[in-house]
Structures are given as C-alpha cells and as structure tokens.
C-alpha cells in the first residue's frame, strides 16, 4: 500500500519536473498557431476576407477577430477545418449560402488586354495580348480579383457548374421527428 503511494508520488513529481523543464527549455517564441493557420489558408492573398492577404487573415483568426467562415475561396471544407483547429462552433446556415465560385470569360466581349491575366494570383487565366483569354477551372479559386479589373466587364464570377464527376447525392430531405415526439403505440 505505502509502496504504491510512494512510487506513484515519486513518479508524479518526476514527470512534473520533466514537463516543467521541457516547457522552459523548448519554449516557442513565435505564435505557432498563426503559421499553422496560414498553412491552411489558400495562400492566394485575394483579400476577399477584408484583411491584408492570407497572413493578415491568419493573424486575425488567431486573435479571434475573424470568423472561421471568413475565407470564401476556401469554402465549407476550409471553414470546418479552421473551426476545428480553433475550437469554434460553426453556424451551419451561414455556410450553406456560400457555394464555391469560379471565374469565366465571356469570349464575345474579351478584348485580350491581359489585365486579368496579370492580376490572377494563381495563374488561372491564360491568354496573350489581343487573344481571347480563358480560365483554367482547376486552378481558379473564385477570388474575384479579376472581376473588376476587366475594362469590358467580360469576367463573370459564377457558381462552379455541377458535372457528373462532381455531383453528390443530396442528403435525405425529411428530417424525422425526435423519438420523444413519436406517437405512443398504445395511445
């Protein structure tokens, strides 16, 4: 009995000392979470969150100033990942409204000015001077940086079209009543 008490106490003290020393010895000065959040964000610095680039957004998220849903190009999966990392709860309704967006060029009014091409942070627009530009869908985050730069308004930001490859079975629509609300069998 006494042996057990002594040995467990001794172990507790020993591990406490190790942990205490380790906390001092391996102290990290920079705010590690900011770097971690920055790594999760798309890195396009599109500015749609209202902060100066992804680094700014990461700082704001770490300080609790920005909501987890602040990044439109990241969409629902990123918001969920951020919320999980920061221990926040997500407002489900706010999420469903934001569908992933994508830019597209209306070819009949594109004049080939290359302005959008230069502004794109992911090189998703291809084209050349006086050639019709086009958007590579796989590379576009829908950050909308190109939208207002276009002198002819040829760029539209639209929801990502659903294809056979991206279509997902919808969730069953009817939500069942709770078990407690069910009609008793012998009523």
């Amino acid at each position: 009995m006494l042996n057990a008490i002594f040995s467990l106490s001794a172990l507790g003290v020993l591990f406490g000392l190790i942990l205490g020393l380790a906390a001092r010895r391996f102290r990290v000065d920079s705010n590690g979470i900011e770097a971690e959040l920055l790594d999760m964000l798309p890195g396009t610095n599109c500015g749609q969150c209202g902060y100066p680039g992804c680094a700014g957004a990461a700082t704001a998220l770490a300080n609790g100033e920005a909501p987890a849903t602040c990044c439109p190009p990241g969409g629902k999966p990123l918001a969920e990942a951020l919320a999980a990392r920061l221990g926040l709860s997500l407002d489900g309704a706010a999420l469903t409204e934001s569908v992933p967006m994508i830019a597209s060029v209306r070819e009949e009014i594109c004049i080939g000015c290359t302005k959008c091409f230069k502004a794109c942070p992911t090189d998703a627009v291809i084209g050349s001077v006086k050639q019709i530009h086009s958007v590579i869908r796989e590379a576009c985050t829908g950050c909308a940086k190109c939208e207002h730069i276009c002198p002819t308004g040829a760029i539209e930001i639209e929801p990502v079209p659903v294809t056979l490859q991206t279509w997902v079975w919808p969730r069953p629509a009817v939500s069942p009543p709770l078990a407690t609300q069910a009609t008793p069998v012998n009523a």
Partner: protein
Amino acid sequence: MGTPNISSHPPLLTRLRRHLAQWGTHPDGRKHPAAGTTVTPVPLPPQLRLPLSQHIGAPARPVVQAGDRVLRGQLLAEAQGNISAPIHAPTSGLITGIGEVPIPHPSGLGAPAILLEPDGLDEGVSLTETDPFSLTPAEIARRVAAAGVVGMGGATFPAAVKLSLGRNNPIPTLILNGGECEPYLSCDDRLMQERPGEVVDGALIIARAVGARQILIGVESNKPEAIAALRETARVHPEIRVEAVPSRYPMGSEKQLIAWLTGREVPSEGRSADVGVVVQNVGTAAAIHRAIRFGEPLTRRIVTVAGGAIRTPRNLEVRIGTPVSALIEFCGGFTQPPARLVMGGPMMGLAIHSTDIPVIKGSGGLLALTAAETAQSDAEAACIRCGSCVNACPIGLLPLEMAARIRAGDLAASADIGLKDCIACGTCSFVCPSRIPLVQYFNHAKGELASRERNRMKQAAIRELVEARSARMEREAREKAEAAARRKAERERAKAEAAARAQEEHTA
C-alpha cells in the same frame, strides 16, 4: 495457394460459415413472366444516342465528326486514360452530331453523346476471328479493352483492368457471377439458358487471361434451367464448377459471392484480387467471348423489360444507344401510367424521368412500376434501434449508427465505423421498419467525402501555383533590378569614359 478444391462438398468450416451467414433479405422475386420469354432483338430506332461516359472512369473521346458515315463495329470514341472504355457504332449510319442528351444517372444531368442515325443497311466492318488460346494473357486484355467491354452487371467497370490483375498477384480462382439477385431482372438468366456456350467459353478465356486454374460459376437456386444448361455445357471442362447459391439479396454482390463460394472474406477497403479471386458477370463473359473469338466490340446487350405497368414483359436484345421509349413500344406500351420508371433493378437501379434516355452498356433492366409496386408510403419515422439493418447488412456494418453520425453532420465519424466498406446494396433501407432512407444517407456521405477530398487536392495544387507565381514574380523583379543596375553602370562607365576623353582632348 494450395490446390483448388473442386469437390462438390465444401469443407466443414465453409458449411458452418454459410450456416452462420444470416445477412441479406428475401424480396419478392417477381421474375416471371419476363424470365420465361426468349431474348428477342429490337428493331433499330430512328436515332441512337451513345453517351461518352457509359463506364466508370474517364469519358471516351470522340474520333468521328458530324456528317461521317460509320459502319457497325467502327470505333466512335476512344478510351482516355487507364480506366476508361471506347465506344463503337452499334449499326451503320450517319453521325448527326455530338450533343448533350439525358442519360441514366441519378443526378438527372445530361451528358455529351454521339448521335447516330441508322441507315437501315446494318453494314459491319470486317471482323477477324481468332483462337483465344493462341493469344498471350496481355493480348487478351488488350483486345478486351479495345472492344470496349465493361462489367455488364451494372457496375460498368472496364473489364480489361480486371484481366490484367493476374500480372501482379496470383489469381487461382475465377468466379462468374450469375447471381442476378435483383427482383424482376432475368437478362442473365436468359443468357445462361440460351447461350451457355458463350458464357463458358468467355469464362475459359478470362481464366487464361488472369491465370486462374479453377472457375466457379455461382447461380442463384431460383434459376434451375440456367444451372442445368451451364452444367451440361461445362461437363467437358473439369476445372469449371457450376454452383447453386441460395436466392437471397444481395447474393450477386461480388464480396458476398466470394465469401459464399470460397469461404474467403475480402478485407476492408480491399479488392477481390487480395484473396486471389477475380469476379466477372456472366454477361461480361459472353461479351468477352464475342470480343476475342469474333473481334466483335460491345454494341448490344440483353435488357429485361418488366414491371406491372408493362403490357408484355420480356427480354430484349438491344443495341446500345436505343432510347427506352423504343423498348416500351416494342413491349406493347403501358397498361397504365407507371408510377415510376426504373433503369436497372428495383433495389440498386435508378429512377428515370424521361423515356428519351438511352440504354447504355450497364443497363440490365427497364422497369415500369405501378404505384402498388413502389414503396411510396409515408415519410421516414424515427429510428427505433431495432437492429434489423444490422442483421441484414451483408458486410456486417452498423447502418443505424452510421446514419446517425451522418445526420449529425459528422461524416468522418461514419467513415471511421465502416462507411467506405458499404456496397450501397440498399438492404438496410429495404428492411427498415421506420422507412429511413439509410442507403441515401450513405451515398450522400460517400459523395460528400469524395468531394471534400477533391477540394483538398485542388487547394494543394493551387497553393503550388501561388508559390510558383510568387517565385516567378520575385525572379522577374530581381532580374529587372539587375538589368537596371547593369544599364546604370554602363551609363556611368560611358559617362566616365566621355569625361576622360574630354579631359585628354582638353590637355592635348
């Protein structure tokens, strides 16, 4: 692997395991009257619509243009990538265009298709006959791929991919799936009864391609004529054993058939090749027989047209691309407006909303169901945790727990308890007394998880693009600065030289 066991008395352990396997359900078969009718060819419709995506994998790429005249068996679209299948012309005629048409897909979305107007001559390209046993396994796989053969049981997985499995792992056993456990359907039954020679020859060709020494043909016991026909044909081949398996849904599922016939269980998230087995549908075997023996590409299939709203249910041989309206018309039309049109079987098939939808390579059935035949009853009720779904699940999962997690939005948790092993057979939804659409929850969650994975990969790719762009910008800025510095240095040197020359002149 040990010597294959070909005795008709399985070992005691297998028999015990079979006795203990109580999964599945027994839906009303309703195979008749269609199952008693001989396969009849359907006349050519005025237009064939051949979707580019009739298989699992990348859509095929068209190699013909509007205005081309094509012959039966001519290549119309080639395979793109490793998992894909080409598409051939089912008859001779004129290509009128490539456009978006409604296709059999649960989303109801359209997809690009080649439109072919038959000229009625049905002229074919010249085909070469080959002795399959003079070909190497790799050549068999290549020819099957070139013929566009896919899994005819409905999964439409390119058949040639499975034929190449023998290269990496030893495959001692080939199983032909003649289960056909879906109610109403009898296309495989008719095929086995009427053309057992094609099925058996196809099996021998596949066995040669994968290097299998033993061939098991599993047929549900509700098809005694098919079993008798196959046994009669296979009598001269000692390596083939035709086994009657119990009529129980989903016995025609690959994993269930393997477990029943060999006693081996496919590991979680594994493939049948992991236990040394390749499974092909009997229809696929017949298609492979035609592709290898006669060089004939896959351009037709047997379709069961049945259901309470069809005047004369029967089995038809249909050219791929025929609209379902032509099939309904050939069967005498409807006796009453159908409550639901289903392509495939009633358990795993999909509801279609237009009769313009074409028959594709994986369409085994067309059902016009009356309101009495469809379970369009009340809405879903609360789960009473009766455990019926747990008993019925052929994989041994916990459907009620998985659905509860999905309903709570925690898809990852449902994946942790086996969502990825779900085969979407729908047995759980069928037996649920509360009519909870369990399988739809699972289909939704699987799709959602896959879409998140795609999104994650897209984000990673975009991050690389951003990094590449910022590196390029930095390099360009640096080069510009360097060039400016060089020019400046040059200018200064020129200025200094000019000054020096002026000095010299001045002193001179």
